[in-house]
């Protein structure tokens, strides 16, 4: 029997890097208010101040401390992306499991709706819905969660339908268990592995979608800080040869790459075990 430490040593360096980065991001997001003396809305000096010891990354277009906004931006974007992903999974998994266990006329209808929703370009669809319902954080979360739940639905349905035909599910059905029991006790425990990997990927896509929408000025609204709109607001600095606006963009890239590394490793491991 191997110890936990020995298991850790088997983790490939890319996945290890990913795990370290993700933990770092989470810790920074939680500790943000304690790490910086300023608030994310506070104007602390002139616009576009250079890097100094008081403002390690200078100030932004309105004279707010860039490092503070970077930290809060991470906290806001990560938090919203996490809530959105959870919601997308709640909707997608519930619909997928119901479609498989209850079945009947419900399954083809749900599948057709999902096909239809998925055949429309996602970013355009989100822009359209946000232009109708307005850009507040609850609508942002709801719109992205509903549209992204379609992929979760497909995965859940595909994974669950291969489990639902197993003998032990049939046995549970015959001994009179209700659909709730079948979903939560018989099917769900057997499809967690693909769902967890999908959670990581989905989180990346949701995070990128929020960043892109905020970059376009239609996601998280000012004065709240977030990485997408920080890039847009301070983009003029790039034309003067200053890389500060690239830092939030790089922060997004590093996080999504890290999560991808972890998911890649998990997928390899889970398929490796099957062989």
């Amino acid at each position, binding site marked *: 029997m191997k110890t936990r430490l020995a298991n850790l040593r088997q983790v490939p360096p890319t996945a290890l890097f990913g795990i370290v980065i993700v933990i770092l991001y989470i810790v920074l997001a939680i500790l943000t208010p304690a790490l910086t003396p300023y608030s994310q809305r506070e104007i602390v000096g002139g616009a576009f101040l250079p890097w100094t010891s008081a403002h390690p990354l200078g100030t932004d277009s309105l004279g707010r401390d860039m490092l503070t906004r970077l930290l809060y931006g991470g906290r806001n974007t990560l938090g919203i992306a996490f809530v959105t992903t959870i919601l997308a999974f709640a909707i997608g998994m519930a619909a997928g499991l119901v479609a498989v266990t209850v079945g009947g006329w419900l399954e083809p209808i749900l599948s057709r709706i999902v096909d*239809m929703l998925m*055949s*429309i*370009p*996602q*970013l*355009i*669809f989100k*822009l*359209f*819905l*946000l*232009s*109708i319902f307005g850009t507040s954080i609850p609508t942002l979360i709801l719109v992205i969660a509903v549209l992204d739940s379609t992929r979760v639905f497909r995965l859940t349905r595909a994974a669950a339908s291969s489990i639902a035909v197993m003998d032990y599910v049939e046995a549970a059905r015959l001994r009179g268990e209700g659909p709730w029991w079948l979903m939560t006790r018989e099917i769900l425990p057997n499809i967690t592995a693909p769902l967890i990997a999908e959670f990581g990927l989905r989180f*990346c896509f949701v995070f*990128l979608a929020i*960043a*892109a929408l905020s*970059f*376009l*000025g*239609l996601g998280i609204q000012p004065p709240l800080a977030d990485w*997408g709109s920080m*890039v*847009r607001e301070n*983009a003029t600095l*790039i*034309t*003067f*040869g200053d*890389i500060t*606006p*690239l830092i939030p*963009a*790089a922060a*997004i*890239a590093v996080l*999504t*790459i890290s*999560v*991808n*590394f972890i998911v*890649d490793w998990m997928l390899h491991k889970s398929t490796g075990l099957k062989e």
Partner: protein
Amino acid sequence: MNPILILIAKRLGLGLLTLWFVSFGVFFAIEALPGDTAEAILGQSATPETVAALRKELHLNQPALLRYWNWQIAVLTGDFGTSLSNGRPVSELIGTRLGNTMFLAGMAALISVPLALCLGLLAALWRNSLFDRLINAVTLTSISMPEFFIGYVLIFAFAIRAGILPPMSAISPTMGLPDRIVFTILPALTLTLVVVAHMMRMTRASLVNLLSLPYVEMARLKGAREMRVILFHVLPNALGPIVTVIALNLAYLITGVVVVEVVFVYPGLGQLLVDSVSSRDLPVVQVSCMIFASAYILLNLTADVIAIVSDPRQLHRT
């Protein structure tokens, strides 16, 4: 009748149905908003009488279904209505911008498709070599990056530091082709980096899959060189999936174009869509969404049809 034709007709029908549903959704989602176009045009200071008069002029007093029918006919005949924010016909706003967007997407496709095919072929040829692993790591990284990060890094490197290309795509309709290309290179390159990774990985994957089949072993045993095996034995069979992936990625280009256009201030349809969403100029939003959605659905449809036509085995699957 030929089963292939039936299958294609089915897909075409489904695609058209989707398109029709989209137009229905686009029209009635805006219907469901509180207030209507007349109030939006006149603003808050309007009297009920002037609102009623304008409603009549815009035919807003007709039933919604009838207006949907008229709108549908108008859009099909190229009459897209007028913009709320500046009163100009939407078709006039969209005309040149649609051309610009097509030019950008087309240029990105011209660079990315041959590049992705070559890289994928080489990665399959030298699989598990250093080159293969390097390409794999680089593409995995570029897939995970937001478009605007790639765009700004390219601006920083090529326009600011090296100073060889313009940082903004200030394109005007009177510009000659060489100038246009110079102004479009950076946005096209950004889009290329976004889509090339996926296309290249799929090309490699479909080639590698086929390489393990017995007929490839046979070709090798009779003494064919690796290059010949890949080009003449494997590639023809992999063409179907590869062309499908290309069509899917071109569809992805259509949405990727929105963010990239904003980064480079490129005067295209994506920029127009984002501007009109911020100003809630709904007629323009409706039409640009319809254009993007139709292009996307049509390309996906093309991918489906090519997949069916290129692989006779598809016929026996149903």
